[in-house]
């Protein structure tokens, strides 16, 4: 194990229930030091509980939390060296921005001049120098968010937990803050665990993403891995926009060809442990569909909806009773209109195969 691969965090078999509600269900994952790790999933999937477990705000029912190899499952919050930014920012309303920053330091008996120096450094880094004497409720949402970040960063934590930090900001600010967070991560190199329900945030910021469902991690990997090889229909549906087209299919006797409403399809991926006649779902990303050129094998379809999105256009077509979405460059879609017949071709190497019953990948 090399230095850069040192584990910052390891959760194994964590379960947590609130009354009869199961928040975390045998959750396990580990995060390498210095990684920007994203917990991704819709709301109430257990992301926040996971972060609170790591911070020590909620005790676990079972399982083990390790931080830098040390078991901290029952350790007090203070000893964990973890800092957290809350979705609600949780700024101290009666203290100025300066005091909010200084608050964690005062407890650590840091000298007065040292506190002053670090507060001013942090404020400068987050462009809050002119706001230091203000109270939080007089600041804009973006500024409050930066104060919350600054208060967490000022202690130079080894691990920083971020709980949907951008959810309460407007779209433009979110974009800026995404870049800002990536910059801070590069600058300080601390380990970040970032919870978000937003696909764009997860894919654009995460070096590694854990997709969560029902209090457990479904799949973990780099954004590319999740996009290219989703382990099941859940992950396939969550990653990538517009969502993957799913076509009902039946595996043929040759164990490679599928009967579908669109006709026979032969994906490049090889199926594993399946029987002929098995029901399957073929997943095709909208960007892997194209208008068939001269000499291509093609499927007849009819356009019924055109959504121009600027540089690309999303076309909904109907083929063999199935509704498919495809993404085309804006230029190639300008002449199309609803009702037109359009021949479409599928990139066979990009077809994902899932079991119809379980949703698990068949490859």
């Amino acid at each position: 194990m090399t230095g850069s691969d040192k584990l910052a965090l390891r959760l194994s078999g964590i379960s947590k229930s609130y009354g009869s509600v199961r928040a975390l269900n045998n959750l396990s994952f580990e995060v390498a030091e210095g990684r920007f790790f994203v917990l991704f999933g819709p709301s109430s999937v257990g992301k926040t509980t996971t972060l609170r477990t790591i911070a020590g705000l909620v005790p676990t029912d079972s399982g083990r939390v390790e931080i830098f190899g040390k078991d901290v499952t029952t350790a007090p919050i203070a000893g964990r060296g973890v800092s957290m930014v809350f979705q609600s920012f949780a700024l101290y309303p009666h203290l100025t921005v300066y005091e909010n920053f200084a608050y964690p330091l005062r407890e650590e008996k840091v000298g007065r001049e040292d506190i002053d120096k670090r507060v001013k450094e942090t404020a400068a880094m987050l462009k809050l120098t002119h706001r230091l004497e203000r109270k939080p409720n007089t600041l804009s949402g973006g500024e409050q968010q930066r104060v919350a970040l600054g208060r967490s960063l000022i202690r130079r934590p080894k691990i920083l937990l971020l709980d949907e930090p951008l959810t309460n900001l407007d779209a433009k600010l979110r974009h800026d803050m995404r870049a800002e967070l990536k910059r801070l991560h590069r600058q300080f190199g601390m380990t970040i665990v970032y919870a978000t329900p937003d696909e764009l945030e997860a894919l654009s910021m995460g070096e590694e993403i854990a997709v969560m469902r029902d209090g457990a991690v479904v799949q973990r990997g780099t954004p590319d891995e999740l996009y290219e090889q989703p382990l099941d229909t859940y992950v396939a549906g969550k990653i990538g926009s517009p969502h993957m087209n799913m076509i009902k299919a039946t595996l043929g006797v040759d164990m490679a060809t599928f009967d579908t409403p669109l006709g026979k399809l032969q994906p490049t991926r090889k199926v594993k442990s399946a029987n002929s006649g098995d029901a399957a779902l073929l997943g095709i990303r909208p960007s892997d569909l194209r208008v068939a050129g001269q000499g291509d094998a093609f499927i007849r379809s009819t356009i019924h909806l055109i959504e121009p999105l600027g540089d690309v256009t999303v076309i909904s077509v109907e083929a063999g009773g199935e509704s498919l979405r495809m993404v085309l460059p804006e230029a190639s879609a300008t002449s199309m209109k609803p009702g037109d017949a359009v021949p479409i071709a599928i990139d066979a190497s990009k077809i994902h195969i899932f079991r119809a019953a379980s949703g698990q990948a068949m490859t």
Partner: protein
Amino acid sequence: MTSTTVPAAPPAFTAFSPDNWRLALIAGIVISAVAIAALPSGVAFWITGIMMALVAIAATMNAVRRRYYGGLLVAPAIAVLFVMNIFPLLWSLGLSFFAYQSNQQTIRFVGLNNYIKVLTNDLAAKDNWAALTNTAMFVVFTVAAQMVIGFLLALLFSKQFPLRKYLLILVLTPMMLSVVAAGVFFTYYYDPTFGILSYIMREMTGEQFILMDNKAGAVAGIVFADAWMWSPFVMLLVLAGLVSVPKYLYEAAAIDRVSGWRQFRTITFPYIRGLLMLALLFRTIEAFKIADLVILLTKGGNDTMTISYHLIRIANEQNKTSEGAAISYLMLFMVIVLTNLYLYLANRRTQGN
């Protein structure tokens, strides 16, 4: 508004019309003044009353015809307020400048003499001075006891524990009791022969124990009863403040590794400071007027006389009505000064931070 019904123009001042309230007011004042000056007081009283009713009718008619419905709607409330609050207040203020006793017919204007007498002669008397210092003592002791106990109770009830809801109701009950009931209850409680307190003390020391036989004991008894009744009030206010503190602030503080005491000082206290001041203000004003428990428990004995009790004796038992009015106004003045001092200090602290 549609143009079909334009309100009638106000009548000319001299017009003899039921809605000419200006004329009615002037006529009412003149006739009443003449009646008071010329006729016996019994007759003048009724004439003045009739004149007031006339003015009221004219004003109402005017409001209906001119469509001042807003004014018409608040009029009953204002009338009640005037009859029940403003009039007695002004009447007693006026009375304090006269020499008048409710058991005698004579009344004589004496200017500030009542006030001068109260502030010099009366205050110089040992008993009255004692009543004043006793009141101050009761204010300090009862308010301090209520604030401390109420605050601690609020801290307790801000936590979740079994039976919390039912215990809360139980703790709030004293506040809802009549003071007389509480007073009687504590009379029995402190009773030298069969009171439970005396019984326990006798069992422990083997000697007769009478709580109320010296000043310290009497004051302690009254302060305890008052704190028992009014600590829940402080608790209720502080509890409202405590539950309004967002939980995530404590979590953030825990993550920031801030100690419990500093969490209290920088998070909890700012949220409840306003309500603490409010509780302090209410309880101080109330404590300043303390008389009921003193009457019920000691009847002013063992040097537990207070200003309020003194006032009741002067005004009701000795029938010195106008002198009582003067004392009341002096008390009101003291309370106003005290509360403004509080508010000034509270505001200065808020701005100072």
